[in-house]
């Protein structure tokens, strides 16, 4: 005779009430072989609990490395390049913001009176008018595209501290739609062009790429998450 496994498990897990516990102890008293079964279950549970807790210590590494203090010592060339890349990126973003801002300002101010009988015509008129107003953007204009899809093309050129080009190549910057058309895996790895990555590898560097997510809350209560991509040039394999 042995215990019902369900009751034995409940006993070990402390899920039996007082009456049920007494009943089991009386059964064990009547049949001493059941004591051994009960003791075995308790020992097994204790060992497993210890085992899981010891193993679990190794499975929860804290991986939130979102803040990296800047090095205070002499900056090696790779770090200089990184700072240059960041500075160039900021410049591109600033320029893009200014140009797009100007473009939209001029588009909205001129588009109103020119909208005729359909929305597409209105957008097209606004697009053309904005192109007249902003010659720098006009060369990128495509009459078939709407304001929503409009993106000027930018290229990022890497230079070292002396103004010499790094890796003899330019880094094109893509918007999501263009990159998808070009076949880049933008959903998980909004990445640099393969040719650039290949050139970097040939020069003895590799790219350490990480995405961290910064979350926040808007005034209206909605949450947002912004992916922040960090790319470091690292020397060696």
């Amino acid at each position, binding site marked *: 005779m042995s215990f019902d*496994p*369900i009751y034995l*498990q*409940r006993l070990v*897990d*402390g*899920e039996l009430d007082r009456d049920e516990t007494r009943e089991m102890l009386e059964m064990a008293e009547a049949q001493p072989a059941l004591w051994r079964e009960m003791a075995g279950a308790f020992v*097994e549970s204790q060992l*497993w*609990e210890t*085992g*899981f*807790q*010891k*193993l*679990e*210590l*190794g*499975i*929860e*590494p804290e*991986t939130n490395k979102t803040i990296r203090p800047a090095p205070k010592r002499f900056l090696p060339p790779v770090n200089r390049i990184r700072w240059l890349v960041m500075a160039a990126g900021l410049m591109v973003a600033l320029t893009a913001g200014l140009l797009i801002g100007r473009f939209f300002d001029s588009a909205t101010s001129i588009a109103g009176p020119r909208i005729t009988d359909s929305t597409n015509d209105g957008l097209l008129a606004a697009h053309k008018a904005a192109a007249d107003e902003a010659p720098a953007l006009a060369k990128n204009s495509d009459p078939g595209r709407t304001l929503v899809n409009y993106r000027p093309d930018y290229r990022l050129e890497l230079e070292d501290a002396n103004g010499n080009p790094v890796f003899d190549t330019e880094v094109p910057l893509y918007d999501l739609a263009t990159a998808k058309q070009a076949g880049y895996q933008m959903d998980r790895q909004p990445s640099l062009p393969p040719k650039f990555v290949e050139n970097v590898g040939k020069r003895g560097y590799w790219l350490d790429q990480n995405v961290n*997510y910064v*979350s926040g*809350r808007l005034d209206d*209560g*909605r*949450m*947002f*998450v912004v992916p922040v991509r960090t790319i470091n040039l690292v020397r060696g394999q």
Partner: protein
Amino acid sequence: MPDEPSKNIDWEAALEQHRPWLRKVLRCRIGDSHEVDDLFQEIALAICRQSNRESSVLPTDPQKVAPWLYRLAVRQSINFHRRAGRKSAAQPMADLDSYDANVEPLDWMLAEEERGAMRNALKKLRSQDREILTLKYTENWNYRQLAQRMGVKERTVEYRLMRARQNLRNLLSAGAHQMVEAKPK
């Protein structure tokens, strides 16, 4: 009809509150800790997307937050395996480079052997079994608490625990037999 998004539930706080055990669930089902981080971010994104929708499926009852997050974590892990083409075998527990110079070498070896047997058995255990045992033994939850988190009845928890323990027992026993047979005579 889907619930309206609740304004009373602070999802950011809820995610932070449930993060430790949800990570364990993902870890049991996925293995790789970096992938676990990615999946956890996807859970946060899924919540953001839902909270911005007019017809959101986010629960309004605070009691249902934990089981909803659990289901979301399970779904994300299933999607992960689909994306990975079912190639990624879950590696439940990381190897511990745990040699402690203050411990007697023999004691350390015995303890390491014990851990190794447990690790090997856990690798072979079904992810659902691994998950419920991990939650039971590391969170020290009773049946009711487990049932609340997993969104099932206490009887279901009881049955799953019994099955998981039996499977682990079988695997440990099989591993012990293999070790005995492999010993040189």
